[in-house]
């Protein structure tokens, strides 16, 4: 809305929608139109939206798998090494390598490893926490965590053209289309 401060560079255009269906349809149209650098902001998960804005996949599952494997192997060795190699102790006449007894701890540490890698891997890869982000400048953006749905086409998209893109987005059942400054 701050059309007067034109000196600051543009981050993109953001459109505000009333419901997830309109947003999803808009994202599909924008993708069909050739836009690739876009992002959507919603208060709830919208099935198919990630694919619609051209999100393919992340390497996060791989990171989680590595975390799980680290926890699994580490958890097992944590018990195997002291019980069998470092300080062998006969407990109840059981074999030193009592692997069935090691499984619960191994299992728990697998979960722990995967969960830690998931949380910190996610934070590392998506850049959160982000104290400042250009979309915060969009009017009423705080409603993205309540009942509004936003679609932002970024200025660095090769097909981005302020006038044409604004025209295109206005035709998308949006409540309002506004410019977002960096």
């Amino acid at each position: 809305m701050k059309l007067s401060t034109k000196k600051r560079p543009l981050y993109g255009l953001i459109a505000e929608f009333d419901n997830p269906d309109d947003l999803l349809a808009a994202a599909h149209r924008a993708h069909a139109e050739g836009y690739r650098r876009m992002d959507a902001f919603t208060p709830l998960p919208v099935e198919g939206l990630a694919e619609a804005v051209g999100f393919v996949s992340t390497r996060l599952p791989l990171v989680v798998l590595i975390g799980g494997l680290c926890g699994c192997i580490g958890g097992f060795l944590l018990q195997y090494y002291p019980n069998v190699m470092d300080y062998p102790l006969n407990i109840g006449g059981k074999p030193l390598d009592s692997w069935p007894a090691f499984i619960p701890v191994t299992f728990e540490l697998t979960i722990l490893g995967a969960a830690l890698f998931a949380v910190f891997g996610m934070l590392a890869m998506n850049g959160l926490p982000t104290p400042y982000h250009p979309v915060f400048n969009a009017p009423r953006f705080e409603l993205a965590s309540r009942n509004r749905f936003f679609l932002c086409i970024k200025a660095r998209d090769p097909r981005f053209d302020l006038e044409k893109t604004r025209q295109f987005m206005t035709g998308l059942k949006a409540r309002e289309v506004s410019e977002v400054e960096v």
Partner: protein
Amino acid sequence: MNGSDALQTDVSRLEKPALIVGLLALVISVGGGLHSPVQFFRSYLRGYVFWLGVALGCAAVLMLHHLVGGRWGFVIRRLLESGTRTLLVMAAFTVPFLLGLRFLYAWADPVRAHAETAIEDKALYLNVPFFIGRTIVYFAAWMLLAHFLNKWSLEQDRTANPALTRRLQNLSGPGLVIYGLTVTFASVDWVMSLEPSWFSTIYGMIFMVTQALSAMSLVIVITLLLSKTEPLREMVTPPALNDLGNLLLTFTMLWAYLSFSQFLLIWSGNLPDEITWYTARATGGWAWIAVLLIVFHFAVPFLLLLSRFVKRRIRLLSAVAAGLVVMSLLDMFWLLAPAYDRAGPRFHWLDWTAVIGMGGVWFWRFIAQLKRAALVPLHDPRMARGAGHHG
């Protein structure tokens, strides 16, 4: 109406062949049974417990869906309902089983029951009249549940009355409690008492999960067969398949978790009364069956079902599910057969004819019930809401 026409070209062609194959296999079984009644009843029990488990698993998953909702359930609801209808056939199959009790259970054999004090001490519970009485109570409870689960669901198709959904929910809550109690007692009666001196308190839970898993697996395979049929085709979407795959993954993990818990406790306790059950199942050729179960009943399906790529493709998901059906059958064999064959697995031909015979008749009843109604529930108020999100 288009739907049931298409179904007739697809699956209903199998209705009569299933019955013919089933009856033929049962006749051969009985023929073999005249020659060796002991083997006949042992094989019969294996097939019986498996197919009854599928029917009961259908009831459990169906009630679960009534309680929690979700788009996955609308895809398979009619299949589950038809599955519960096969309880009538299973009730009929109970009669020969009750006639052969003394061939199956040491406690039902007048000679052996008094030879061992461990068995004699349990005679108050493990005796033939009480056993038959309990069996009648179980089936009465199950068939009553199945009756109302089907009746109200079909009534909603006709009347579009949204209150029926609430009524089905009110039935399903207590229904699952009844299911849990009856299956616990039934698994103790029919399977655990094969080795009357052994006991495990987690046993009923393992059976419930096995039943839900085999029912889900079979229903997913049948979904593949029906996925070209019109009303179902629109509903077999990648997100719905993803949910079904996740549920299958949950049951697979739960099966491994419960089975391992039982093993770990008995292994740690290391008491002579308890470990005999595992030593019988982990020595001789049985160890190989146990390894097969760990790898193909847990590890492989677990890793495959983690992948969205697999879960979202009906053919891949069905392939995993088909593998799990086979493994459930092997699991049942591993639970039951070592009670007699300590030396190692011995697949008698009567095992095959019993499973195929009962399975054929089971499918005949299943398909006949499936044809009676639309392939998907028509007027569940929760369904429209679910459809809006991915429509």
